[in-house]
């Protein structure tokens, strides 16, 4: 099992957001997580990446059998967990290329591998840039600074392509993207999908799932997974909205 989430409870500022999540992701699988606003989708993604503001109040998360929650964010990254941020952070003054090289070499160092020199790094970068059709000029810019919404999302996927994670978590990467950008993002994910990697795709819209085809769809509501199914569940949600699910959630609470 790549990822095993058991009865996960998490709170922020004393307010419980996740109220017992159970989810298992095997290598080779793609799981979509859908749900209305405020259902806890982004909280789940943030807890998995190691955001410190969230307090895990109960439950556990195993990643390749290891306790993921004990690891610092950089350890998680080095172990192969990647979060594509819903809102990528602008970091003025930190050059994109310096950042990417520090990230890649940070991970390689953790794994006991040699650092890539500037030349090797450039070659790798050029190769990966083709995957997400990203323009070379971004290398001279500061991380995410002045990027359009679409550029930021594509840059997230570019980073993912570069770092080659085992577990990719996409937090509403599709929100606000036009169809062309969406296809590029999906293509980036699809090239990374293989029998050894797993993906958790958090999304609001069924549309993304036409391009990144999930094996499972889970519906999150009120901090719990209230329904799971195959990709057809996404279509049902699209047609019926979330109200019928909310009814289920209310029942589940009682």
């Amino acid at each position, binding site marked *: 099992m790549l990822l095993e989430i058991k009865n996960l409870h998490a709170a922020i500022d004393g307010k419980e957001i996740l109220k017992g999540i159970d989810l298992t992701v095997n290598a080779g699988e793609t799981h979509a997580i859908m749900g209305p606003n405020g259902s806890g989708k982004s909280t789940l993604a943030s807890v998995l990446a190691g955001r410190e503001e969230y307090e895990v109040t109960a439950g556990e998360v195993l990643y390749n059998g290891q306790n993921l929650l004990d690891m610092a964010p950089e350890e998680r990254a080095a172990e192969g967990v990647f979060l594509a941020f819903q809102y990528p952070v602008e970091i003025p003054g930190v050059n994109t290329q310096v*950042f990417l090289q*520090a990230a890649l070499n940070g991970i390689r160092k953790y794994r006991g591998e040699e650092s890539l020199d500037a030349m090797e790094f450039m070659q790798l970068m050029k190769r990966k840039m083709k995957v997400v059709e990203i323009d070379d000029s971004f290398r001279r810019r500061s*991380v995410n600074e002045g990027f359009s919404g679409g550029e930021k999302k594509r840059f997230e996927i570019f980073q993912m392509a570069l770092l080659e994670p085992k577990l990719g978590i996409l937090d509403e990467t599709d929100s606000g993207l036009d169809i062309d950008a969406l296809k590029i993002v999906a293509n980036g994910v699809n090239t990374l999908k293989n029998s050894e990697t797993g993906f958790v795709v958090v999304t609001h819209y069924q549309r993304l799932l036409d391009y990144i085809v999930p094996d499972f769809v889970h519906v999150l509501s009120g901090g719990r997974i209230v329904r799971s199914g195959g990709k057809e569940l996404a279509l049902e949600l699209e047609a019926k909205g979330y109200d019928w699910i909310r009814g289920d959630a209310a029942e589940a609470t009682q």
Partner: protein
Amino acid sequence: MSLLKGAGASLEAAKERYLASFAQRDAQGETPWSSKLRQAALDSFAAQGFPSTRNEEWKYTDVRPIAELDAQTASTQGLNGLATGGGQAFNFGELQTHRLVFVNGRMAPQLSQIHELPNGVTLGSLAEHIAGGSELVQEHLGRYAVQTAPSPFTDLNTAFMQDGVFLHVPNGIEIETPIHLLFLSQPGEGATVAYPRNLIIVGASSRVTLIEHYASTHGGEYFTNTVTEIIAGKNANIDHYKLQLESEAAFHVSTTQVQQERDVHFASHMFDFGGRLVRNNSNAVMGGENIECTLNGLYLIDGKQHVDNHTAMDHAQPHCNSYEVYTGVLSGQSRGVFNGKIFVRRDAQKTDAKQSNRNLLLSTDALVNTKPQLEIFADDVRCTHGATIGQLDEDAEFYLRARGISKEDARGLLVYAFANEVLNGVRLEPLRAFLEQQIFTRLAQR
């Protein structure tokens, strides 16, 4: 009240000690003219004494530790531990420079190296030129620093000045190789005080790059009181860097006075990484039209370090642009002070002055006092200023860590990014690399 009385008494006693030591100074090389200049400065110091914190200009900087330090000027020329060429450690990588080294305030010819210079350029010991009765020196020395911003420390320097550089570049000459002025402190028998004094005269349409560099070979207590006067002729182009890398037990007070004629491009970048108690006074007078003047600074301090930058941009004539960015990174219980004066005189229409002071506090005990001070007497001008004090952006730190960058490296990158604005102004690549290395090393030690 009794505490204030105590402070006053201590400053008064220190003043008397300094006044008494004047008669005992080594007067070798003085001329009637220079003795008169010294005496006048001493009288001015005697009238003011050391400033207390009740003096608005010194409100946040208590100079008692400096005043109370019973320091002597080092008398020996001995260079214990500093073999010829031993100053290599103070080079900037492969950067070729004309290098003048001063040890405890006195010129060390064994450590200095001046390469071939264009015809007519004078570069050498100021003390020698005073002794030789140089007319240029007599015309300019002490004329500007005291006028614009009178300070008892500037007076003390004039009264006790030892040596430093005298540079005269005639009109229309470009000196390509940067001039590196290295002021080293080495241990004396007790605490030492040094009074470096530099006079730089750059002729019309000439160009020069200066690096003032203060460092030590030991971690002990000493005092550097330094004054640099720069006179820039029409259309001159001057890059000035000041690196204050004194020991962390040292006291450092400096005055940098820049006098500019029309069409001058002047840029100064000051780096304060060392020193326990530091005060820099930087004054730039724009005495002609169409001047571009930059005063930038970066202070990176920790522990109980205290760094105070007082700057003054004096727009005396129209159509001048001034730029000022001071950036601070503070850890431990360190304290930063910034006071930025912008004067726009009545005639200085179409002035464009920009000032900012940004501070990054890496600990809860670090403290910053920042104050812009604008005095505007012309009506068609643009002046902007801003000051910020903040912590590292936690979202940015998390983003970097989520990509596999260690917490330490993530913080290093963010601090570096914060300091980058000032570092970017350093046009000498090897010098910038040297400063970057200093920043990373110092951050790693925290």
